[in-house]
């Protein structure tokens, strides 16, 4: 199936103004929000930029890393007594981690005692510690004291970390998912111990994404398109939709899919979720998996021309995806008005057959469909600006959307109407300041 396109007329697309933020000299891979109006960007040039999301003003240019940035995490610490300081932690391929102060734009501290590149960073706000994941897992406090660390895990290192309840974290290490628990050590007041609690080996291939849905659930996705929903408390599989998207496991599904899907295109690139659904970027497509119903309720198998790299759910039932093809698309999850007499269009809903073992189940699912709402993803707009893969984006609500790309640029997409009225406001403010508002007769 070909990529759905939308014409030039995009009524629902409110991004009618853009600002190009230049500064990076290499691929920009990470965008991270600091507060309501600031964000940081980092990428392969090893430089971190702080930007004002409203004006697009470059606030700081942080130099310190000599290699590309591999992970970035915001760390706003409020000690209660002190005023809030916004920090960001960055890890680089030069095997250092640096903590930056976003207010002053200065380097607070630098750690360079790592044996391998830190690939992921997670802040446990509750415990006021942060974790770095490389070939081992280290736990640090705010002052950058190493509290504890695990033994060497693998050479490949931890690719993803997610915080779980009860002082646990899940780390994706290759095909394995390892659960660690942090426990207060007996001797010190601020000492922590980290213990490996469980190793989950259900994935057939490397785990590519790991996301926490709520306190009770988290989800993992692997390179060959497995999606597993886990219980966050006892680490059991709630829904084991292994090889869910892999057509090779289900030779009976539509040949159309078989043709189009190569291993690379079934990789779960990114997962995001709201309370009801998990949204998965799989290959070129986007899939909406309902946790309640435990099945995919809507999908867009070729949402983009090439791999979808990042997706995010907006509060207003909209979904944004960005892709290697350089475009950003805005989708809306809509409920389909289904006429009872109308047969289910297979072209659209052939996904229903996916997870079922046989055609009977497929039929059953179809029957079930008739009394459940049917959803579909409608393309409501696309943003074309980058000339290369859009690595990531950051949704700033009213302020707009920041996208970063391999073309070294960051684009700030804004609501033209809103910006226009803001400018009017600024104009009249300035008029008043200048005293030009006075009438003289």
């Amino acid at each position, binding site marked *: 199936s070909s990529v759905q396109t939308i*014409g*030039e*007329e*995009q*009524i629902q*697309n409110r991004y*009618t*103004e*853009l*600002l*190009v*933020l*230049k500064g990076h000299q290499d691929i920009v891979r990470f965008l991270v929000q600091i507060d309501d109006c600031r964000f940081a960007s980092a990428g392969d040039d090893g430089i971190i930029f702080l930007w004002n999301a409203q*004006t*697009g*003003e470059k606030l700081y240019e942080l130099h310190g890393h000599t290699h590309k940035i591999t992970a970035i995490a915001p760390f706003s610490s409020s000690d209660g007594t002190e005023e809030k300081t916004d920090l960001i932690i960055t890890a680089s391929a030069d095997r250092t981690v640096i903590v930056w102060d976003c207010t002053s734009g200065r380097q607070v501290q630098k750690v360079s005692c790592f044996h391998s590149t830190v690939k992921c960073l997670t802040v446990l706000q509750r415990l006021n510690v942060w974790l770095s994941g490389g070939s081992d897992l280290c736990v640090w406090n705010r002052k950058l004291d190493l509290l504890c660390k695990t033994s060497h895990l693998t050479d490949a290192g931890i690719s993803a970390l997610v915080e779980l309840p009860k002082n646990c974290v899940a780390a994706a290490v290759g095909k394995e998912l390892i659960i660690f628990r942090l426990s207060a050590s007996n001797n010190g007041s601020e000492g922590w111990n980290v213990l490996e609690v469980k190793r989950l080996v259900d994935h057939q291939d490397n785990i590519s994404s790991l996301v926490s849905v709520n306190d009770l659930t988290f989800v993992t996705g692997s390179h060959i398109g497995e999606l597993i929903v886990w219980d966050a408390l006892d680490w059991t599989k709630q829904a084991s939709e292994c090889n869910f998207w892999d057509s090779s496991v289900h030779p009976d599904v539509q040949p159309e899919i078989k043709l189009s899907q190569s291993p690379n295109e079934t990789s779960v690139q990114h997962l995001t979720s709201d309370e009801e659904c998990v949204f998965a970027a799989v290959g070129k497509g986007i899939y909406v998996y309902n946790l309640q119903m435990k099945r995919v309720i809507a999908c867009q198998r070729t949402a983009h021309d090439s791999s979808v790299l990042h997706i995010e759910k907006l509060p207003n039932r909209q979904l944004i995806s960005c892709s290697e093809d350089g475009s950003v698309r805005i989708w809306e999850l809509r409920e389909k008005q289904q006429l009872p007499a109308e047969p289910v269009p297979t072209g659209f809903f052939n996904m229903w057959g996916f997870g079922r073992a046989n055609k009977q189940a497929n039929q059953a699912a179809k029957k079930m469909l008739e009394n459940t709402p049917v959803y579909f993803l409608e393309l409501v*707009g696309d943003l*074309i*600006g*980058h*000339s290369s893969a859009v690595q990531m984006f950051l949704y700033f609500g009213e302020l707009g959307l920041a996208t970063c790309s391999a073309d070294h*640029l960051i*684009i700030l997409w*804004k609501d*033209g109407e809103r*910006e*226009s*009225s803001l*400018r*009017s*406001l*600024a*104009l*009249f403010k*300035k*008029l008043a300041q*200048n*005293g*030009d*508002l*006075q*009438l*003289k*007769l």
Partner: protein
Amino acid sequence: MISAPDVVAFTREEELEDDLYREPPLPEEYSVPLFPFAGQGANPWAKVAGSKFTRDFILISEFSEQVGPQPLLTIPDDAKVSGTFDLNYFSLRIMSVDYQASFVGHPPGSAYPKLNFVEDSKVVLGDSKEGAFAYVHHLTLYDLEARGFVRPFCMAYISADEHKIMQQFQELSAEFSKASECLKTGNRKAFANELEKKLKDLDYTRTVLHNETEQQKKANDKGYYTTQAIEKANELASVEKSIIEHQDLLRQIRSYPYRKLKESEFHPYEPECALDRADVGSDQDLTASDPAEPGETHLYTHMPSYTPKLIKAKSAKCFDKKLKTLKELCDVYFFTQTLDQLHHIERTFRGDVCYLLTEQISRALLKQQSVTNFLFEDVSFLDEKPPEKQYRGCQGLSQDAIDEKCSEESLAPKVVISLGSYKSSVECVPIKMEQEMEDSEEPKMSESVMSEHQENLDYLDADIKGSISSGESIEVLGTEKSGSGLTKSESQASLPVIPSPQAGRSKVGSRRTVSEDSIEVLSTCPSESLIPEDFKASYPSAINEEPYVDDDEGGLRFTPRLNPGVDDGQDDVSKQESLVQVDAACCIGKESPNFLEPLPELGQKLHEEDGVVRIPPQPYRPAEQGLRGGFPSHDGLSAGLLPYELDSRYLTGSREVSKSSLEECSDSTSYISSAASTCSDRTPSPAHLACTAGERHRKRAGQNALRFIRQYPFAHPAIYSLLSGRTLVVLGEDEAMVKKLVTALSIFVPNCGVYAKPVKHWVTSPLHLVDFQKWKLIGLQRTVSPAGVNVLHALSRYSRYLSILDADSKTLRCPLYKGTVVARLADHRTQIKRGSTYYMHVQSILTQLCSKAFLFTFCHHLHLPISEREPEESIVNRRINFLKLQLGLANEDIKIVQYLAELLKLHYIQEPGQGGNPLLRFDYVPSFLYKI
């Protein structure tokens, strides 16, 4: 003095009563004087009978002490220009006016010769027989070898059109003053050098004489002096005296007040003057304190090249010696600078006076539109230094604003006539400076002060003369402080302290600079004999006129907030009401004269109200800047929201009228100018007048644009794209053709800031998003190579931001346009023939658009809620209604105005220092493919 030539008579005042002037079709400031012989059906551009030269030129003459008045050079340096015109004779005429009351030599009561820093004199004179009229600028240069150390020169701007000279007097004066200043600066330098050399010679001579005397003394033991010895002693004494005199002269020339140069924006190069002065100071000290060892080498180490000569006691009388040339008199550097300046003057004032006037007026008006002028006007002129005269008022005002002392002055109209407006030409000795400082408040005021009172005029007159003569006496006598005090009190006595009702009513009128009227021309002539009696009589009526807007019936006026400093007290009071009034000001449909769009109707109306038009158009007056230029501006000189009061019903209603009139107007213009091109040989046709690059570019662009709209049926959507901020890419293989199209279309591109037009004539690499931020019109190369594929790919990828005009296949891909503005802007059936005419036509419509955008941008209610809880939708509705109903915009025209408004906002809120992020606005609208 030598007999006065026939001074140009002011016939204009009589003409004022003419019916011809009763109802000029244009607003006053736009109309130009009617050709005096229009009634006889003469072509105004026809060669003026009687003049023997083909066009205006500049003549430099000298009153040589050897041969009398002689012409030195003309600019342009072309024999054809002056033709059969007798330069020698005319030199005689203009040099004969030279008042040069300067006294150099030994003034009574002074032991040493006194250098007089003479002010230049500026006169207008005419020779009706020759058909020549001239602005004559006299100046004196110092020459050690000349009689009285001075050599009188004059620079004259010679034209066949006396009106031109009179109207442009201020500008000419300002420009020539610069040239003169440059010459004099160079001359002072050269003179000082000459003096130094002379001093060295004298020192050397003294040493020689001294030695000889000593020897004689030694040889002479008879106890009495031989005649020879006495002679030697006398000689020595005279040399010593001469040394002292020359030292004094040197000190005088060094002490020339340089601050004046700092004041003006004109900085002739002043090489190491400080250094020199310091050196000289030490030299003098040393030579004075230690005369026994005069020729010491270390004193003059900085000038090793010069070897002193022995000076003969009696030098030969100077008729046989060759006088220095002008180039020698001034430093070569300064001489060339001066020539450049004179060439500049010649270029600036080339052409017919009506053209110059219109140009000046519209420039000055445009300058005032600080909020909108960047959109479509030439970027270059915004940076350009304003013509002296037009801004003097303005500068004066800002000075006032800064100078708090000044603002504390009373509100009553104060008339202090001084030479303020000619300050630049007034040179002062230090003593005079002190006095100036005491009076510093007054001249500043006086620059912007004007009286329209007939009663005052006598005072005025007297005052002018008084201050001039006093100024001179101060300079000549040097130390007479009492004299200056007296003058001061005198001039104060002559102030009209009684605020007249008129003055109270119109502060505007009362603050006009005196010097704006060409009548003052002669008042600056120090020589009283040059002012004929009848001329004085005509003086009052000319000054008495008032700007028409001051009429009480004139309805709403723009705030005559000329002097914010002075008005401050009122400001505070009115601040509160004004905030309320702002709202009212925003309301639509209020009856008010429309200043933003000087449409014919309006002009008519105003003139009817005014009754009789009493004056011919005057060069732009600062007073009216306050009226018309009261737009909010960054410098705080603004007048507030009043411009919004433009009656938009009127706007919409008159659209058709303006349309037709515009077309008529442009047609007739084209007729006239084409006629001019055929029959004018004296002056180039108006289109050529200012032969600057910009002008030529405009003409070419206009011509190309005309061709474009005639050739391409889809010109409208293309122009719409440009006006609405959608980048238009002109794609083609042939570079010349693409560039031509880009040039043609560039006149429709609104500027984003005061930098450069967002136009890129030729690009060969694939376009990128950033390019669309920067450029709004791009010429793009089409190639068949693989790189060309990339180029096309980029085009299709970013097609939503682009309109693409394919010059090869003659297609256009862009959004639909159904509005009306562009149809008026680019009518393919237009009768306009000339590029420059079409350019003006475009400018006028774009200006209309600008004013609409201005209204839209600055109408408070259109963007902000009236009440706190007003929903956003109702504001949006109001906005749309305003655009549709009040501004009369249809369909896509709204987008044009919105885009312009957005640019205005950005421009206004942007801080002066920072460039601001360029942003790209776009719409999600479908494009269509147009074919021929």
